[in-house]
């Protein structure tokens, strides 16, 4: 990955192809085939090992993704936080722990799908591919975290500006070209996952049911009116 054209292709072109596919794919799929948006749970078929892989994977990956997002949104504050060694270590250790959780989870779920015939019957080619990509992604991330310290700091100074440049449509790959191979791999594989996302089960992450937190318990739908809550009662007058 030292060839300049290659760099341009992978770090400046691929992101746009991936993002374009991501948005077009997820939106079209949501509108044309809403039935296919599901977690596709397999807990019903195998419930012994299920807890370990699934919980570790999700708690790990959600924390890690939030971390990536924070680094992107508030890089300065992260650097400020890291200015004291103790705080830096805390952040690094927590990040590493969550990343390991995610990796263990990913390996756990794929191992479970190989091991249990019932889980295997509900596994598609897309599942094998995306879960392998996720394992590679987590493993590469952890390798970087261990061998190129302190990632939480240099993410804010190099990766965040690169991502900013992508999102602001002024791609600047100078931050990346000098990076070690494994970092480049993490970036490229990341974009590939983003591009492949709409064609996999991962779309379930987009419909995470957060509004449940403030929803009324009971729902009623009327012909031609739609959904209204029953109890606790709506304020006076409403036909509920």
């Amino acid at each position, binding site marked *: 990955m030292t060839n300049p054209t290659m760099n341009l292709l992978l770090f400046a072109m691929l992101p746009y192809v991936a993002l374009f596919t991501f948005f077009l794919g997820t939106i079209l799929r949501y509108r044309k085939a809403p039935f296919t948006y599901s977690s596709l749970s397999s807990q*019903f078929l195998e419930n012994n090992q299920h807890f370990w892989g699934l919980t570790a994977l999700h708690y790990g990956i959600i924390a890690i993704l939030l971390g990536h997002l924070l680094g992107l949104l508030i890089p300065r504050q992260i650097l400020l936080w890291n200015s004291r060694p103790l705080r830096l270590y805390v952040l690094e250790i927590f990040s590493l722990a969550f990343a390991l959780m995610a990796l263990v989870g990913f390996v756990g779920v794929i191992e479970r799908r190989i091991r249990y015939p019932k889980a295997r019957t509900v596994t598609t080619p897309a599942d094998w591919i995306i879960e392998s990509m996720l394992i590679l992604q987590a493993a590469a991330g952890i390798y970087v975290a261990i061998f190129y310290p302190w990632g939480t700091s240099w993410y804010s100074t190099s990766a965040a500006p690169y991502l900013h440049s992508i999102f602001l449509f002024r791609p600047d790959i100078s931050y990346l070209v000098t990076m070690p191979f494994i970092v480049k791999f993490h970036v490229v594989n990341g974009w590939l996952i983003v591009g492949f996302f709409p064609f996999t089960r991962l779309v379930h992450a987009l419909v995470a049911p957060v509004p*449940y*937190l403030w*929803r009324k318990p009971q729902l009623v739908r009327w012909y031609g009116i739609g959904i209204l809550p029953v109890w606790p009662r709506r304020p006076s007058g409403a036909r509920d």
Partner: protein
Amino acid sequence: MNVRSQVSMVFHLDKCIGCHTCSIACKNIWTDRKGTEYMWWNNVETKPGTGFPTRWEDQERYKGGWEKKNGDLELKSQNKSSALFNIFHNPNQPTLDDYYEPWTYDYQNLFNAPEGADQPTAKPISMITGEYINVEAGPNWDDDLGGSPVYAQNDPNLESLTPEQREQLFATERLVFFYFPRICNHCLNPACVAACPSGALYKRGEDGIVLIDQKRCRGWRACVAACPYKKTYFNWSTGKSEKCILCYPRLETGQAPACFHSCVGRIRYLGVLLYDAARIEEVAKLPDDQLIEGQRSLILDPFDPEVIAGARANGIHDSVVESAQKSPVYQFVKVWKLALPPHLEYRTFPMLFYVPPMSPVMASKEGGVIDHVSGDLFHDIEQSRVPVAYLAKLLGAGQENKVRYALRKQKAVRWYRRALTVGDVTMEVSSRMLAEADCSSEEAEAIYRLTSLCTFEDRFVIPPMHREEAIQMMEDPLEHKASAGFGFVSGPQRGM
């Protein structure tokens, strides 16, 4: 008052012959697809027995239904934040082992097996993996008390019995059982709806049918855990949950649901109840011993002018109110108080009611002479082989007097008819029994007619569903010309 209408049901357990015709009618129409083989939206259980899924009534294990916590009503399976924290792995979700692994047989082997010394057999094959399996459980494994030491003895309702009563129930020479057909109760306070993080489940405003929006369901499975009756099922193939739809496409065209239509024992009744939606929450918080009365008080009198006005104000069509006035369910539940809701202590307010079964009560005296003139004409109800305490646990939210009331009335009606037609009981004794059972002779006559002589039209008073008001009907029909219809435009295929 907030008047709503609800298509409600009564199952007369005294008449169920346990033929499973209802289950088969349902299966053939709705659940013979991949992923639904194990589902029985309608199933018929033998009681005492563990039911389907195994021991579904044990809420310490399954955590279904509501419970009162600090004066508030909460789901037993989750609260709002735990629902999200546990979404990746639901700690209360039943799994295939709680139901059974669906199977078919390798019939081809009967034709293809090479010649040999033994007859070829058709070995069972799993409908999930396609591999040979050892069948160890099925949806009616304990039918007619088969394997009762394992199954019947594990019935959660037996907790309410004393050791003597239990012994009585299981003494071989007195063994007794009855059938308990179950569908979704289309509850007034459905736990399944409240549990769904995506808001995919809903109650239909016009008729109260509880449905799962298949396009909105994301397979979080919270409804499966929350329904105390285990009447939502997870389709392992499509990754969506499914449940009884009360055959709404049939109801909308004026036909009874398939299980009702096909019922051989004619045990099933269907009709509209008007109820007060404004008081559901308040009544759901009542203590256990007031729940039955509480639910009855939610059901409104369809002849009361105030109720009719309330119905009109809420857009309930006059034809539906008229239908409610003819509802057999209203008679059984509210007027005669013969039909009781199953496990009301789960506080979902099921709208399927059961007339408790008599036969075992009467049969307990078979061979002996019943003392016609004893001071208490109902004493054999107390001594019946299915203890009242057991029925009360199942149908009376623990209230024995509610079950006793229904049983006494049924017995009085029988004796009244016996005095009229057989003549071995005097009218005087039968009148005394009617009086003691809180029943007039007109009422007895009406109960007799609706129980024994009921025609199709008496049993199923289906309200006009007014589909002309449905949103689809407002849309330009030409827009859908040559398309796949209003429902699925793409087939219900599993996601990638």
